């Protein structure tokens, strides 16, 4: 469904050129859920934004549903890929009610039965009629993220990109949102690509996991292999250790040696 073939993404020009992701090759089959993990600045969000068409890529090919997508995307191509952002407060227009936010994609794509679509999208993410005419600041963090998910799904996309969808939420709400995403994936047969720095969150939703560091996709492994520690790359092992909690060995194994300082 999503095929990245040697994709390189760079910001800026000339000597200020910064390569955020280099030669990333990744395949997400239809209906699968793939996670990308890595620390901040590893280029995982950049890859996601390039797939969404928000930033151009300088090299390689991105193929979505069998079609290579170029710099300019058609309306149908845009409808196919939707995204949920990290901060639900920043991703909803502060001056628009939930109703207006959900009506916008319907207006853009000139879809019929807008009223029914909005009601359906709200009930699918577990929001009631009483939330429909509220402004984002009148909703809780979890409710806002549900609105963001409803907005992405109202276009009936086949691919859903998730950029750390739970990291801005409370732990109890995180589980709710993850379960909601898992359910929606089953019901709609969505292909998901999720970015997170939290291995537990990724393992909950994804079968395949890609590990990124400094713009490179180091290895692709499965959630089970990750859980049993059967990983190839040294960086992945370090990541696993640091995720298990604070552990001195995870620090001393890396290039950041604080015990020597």
């Amino acid at each position, binding site marked *: 469904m999503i095929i990245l073939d040697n994709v390189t993404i760079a910001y800026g020009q000339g000597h200020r050129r910064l390569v955020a992701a280099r030669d990333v090759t990744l395949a997400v089959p239809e209906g699968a859920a793939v996670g990308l993990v890595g620390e901040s600045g590893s280029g995982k969000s950049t890859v996601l*934004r390039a797939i*969404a*068409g*928000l930033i151009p890529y300088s090299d390689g090919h991105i193929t979505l549903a069998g079609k290579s997508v170029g710099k300019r995307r058609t*309306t149908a191509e*845009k*409808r196919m*890929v*939707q*995204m949920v*952002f*990290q*901060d639900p407060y*920043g*991703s*909803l*227009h*502060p*001056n*628009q*009610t939930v*109703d*207006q936010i959900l009506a*916008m*994609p319907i207006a*853009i*794509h000139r879809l019929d039965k807008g009223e029914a679509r909005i009601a359906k999208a709200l009930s699918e993410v577990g929001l009631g009629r*009483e939330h429909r*005419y*509220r*402004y984002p*600041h*009148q909703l809780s963090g979890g409710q806002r993220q549900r609105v*963001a998910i409803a*907005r992405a799904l109202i*276009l009936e996309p086949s691919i859903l990109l998730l950029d750390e969808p739970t990291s801005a939420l409370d732990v109890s709400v995180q589980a709710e949102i993850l379960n909601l995403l898992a359910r929606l994936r089953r019901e709609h047969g969505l292909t998901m690509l999720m970015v997170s720095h939290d291995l537990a969150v990724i393992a909950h939703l994804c079968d395949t996991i890609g590990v990124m560091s400094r713009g490179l996709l180091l290895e692709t492994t499965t959630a089970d292999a990750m859980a049993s520690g059967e990983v190839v790359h040294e960086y992945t092992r370090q990541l696993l250790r640091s995720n298990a909690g604070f552990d001195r060995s995870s620090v001393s194994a890396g290039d950041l040696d604080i015990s020597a300082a």
Partner: protein
Amino acid sequence: MKTWLTAEITTSAFHARAQRFYYGWLRLRANRLAFAGFCILVGLCVVAILAPLLAPEGSNEQSLALRLRPPSREHWFGTDELGRDIFARIVWGARITIRISCLVAVIAAPIGLAVGTAAGYFGGWVDTVLMRLNDIFLSFPGLILALGFVAALGPGIGNAVIAIALTAWPPIARLARAETLTIRASDYIAAVRIQGAGPLRIILRHIVPMCVPSVVVRITLNMAGIILTAAGLGFLGLGAQPPTPEWGAMLSTGRQNMLGAWWLAAVPGLAILLTSLAFNLFGDGLRDVLDPRSE
């Protein structure tokens, strides 16, 4: 009514908007100075609307026998050098002042918004061209530029309005551009871009609504300057022409008799001062009112 306006659950788009308006009104009421400014402005509008009732004789009723009379019971603000009642002229002049300030706002705000948001959103050479044009207009002092335009177009209120509007839009464009630059990078703009919205829809439906509050605040604060520029043009004889009861022009003619008849210059001067002050106070409080997040 009150329970409907403060209801926890809003049931329609109109309900949500009405509630937001109501909370804005409450915030305005809570800010005493801003509310005082608001009241003065409402009073000014009422005076302008009721001018035929308050001063039925009109603004140009001359009576040379009653020249330069000091304020009295018959003539609250005295009479001028042609025996015209100054109260009547102030009342009718309110209409002109309101018309000038509203027209300038209606012309300058959309131009400033359009130029600023386009420059900020598109960036690149569009930004460069529009902002250098903006710099050219900004580099002249407002009154001088207005003087130049009026000299080219000819004196009169209509031309004064155009001239002032041409000097009022550049600061608004600057403001709108700065706001657009921060809004452009936000996730909610990225979200609508992914959904396929074009630049026109993004600017009009998503960026402009976010810029409007600060632009409204700015133009309200500018109103005082606009009124003063209009009065200044009137004072120099390039704005309203006699016998139009424009406050600046009244001040100008009153100046000649200032030593013998202080009320000729003092009354229109006070009217200008009060209106400018009211706009400033109101503009200061308006930002809190227009921000929905401060509920």
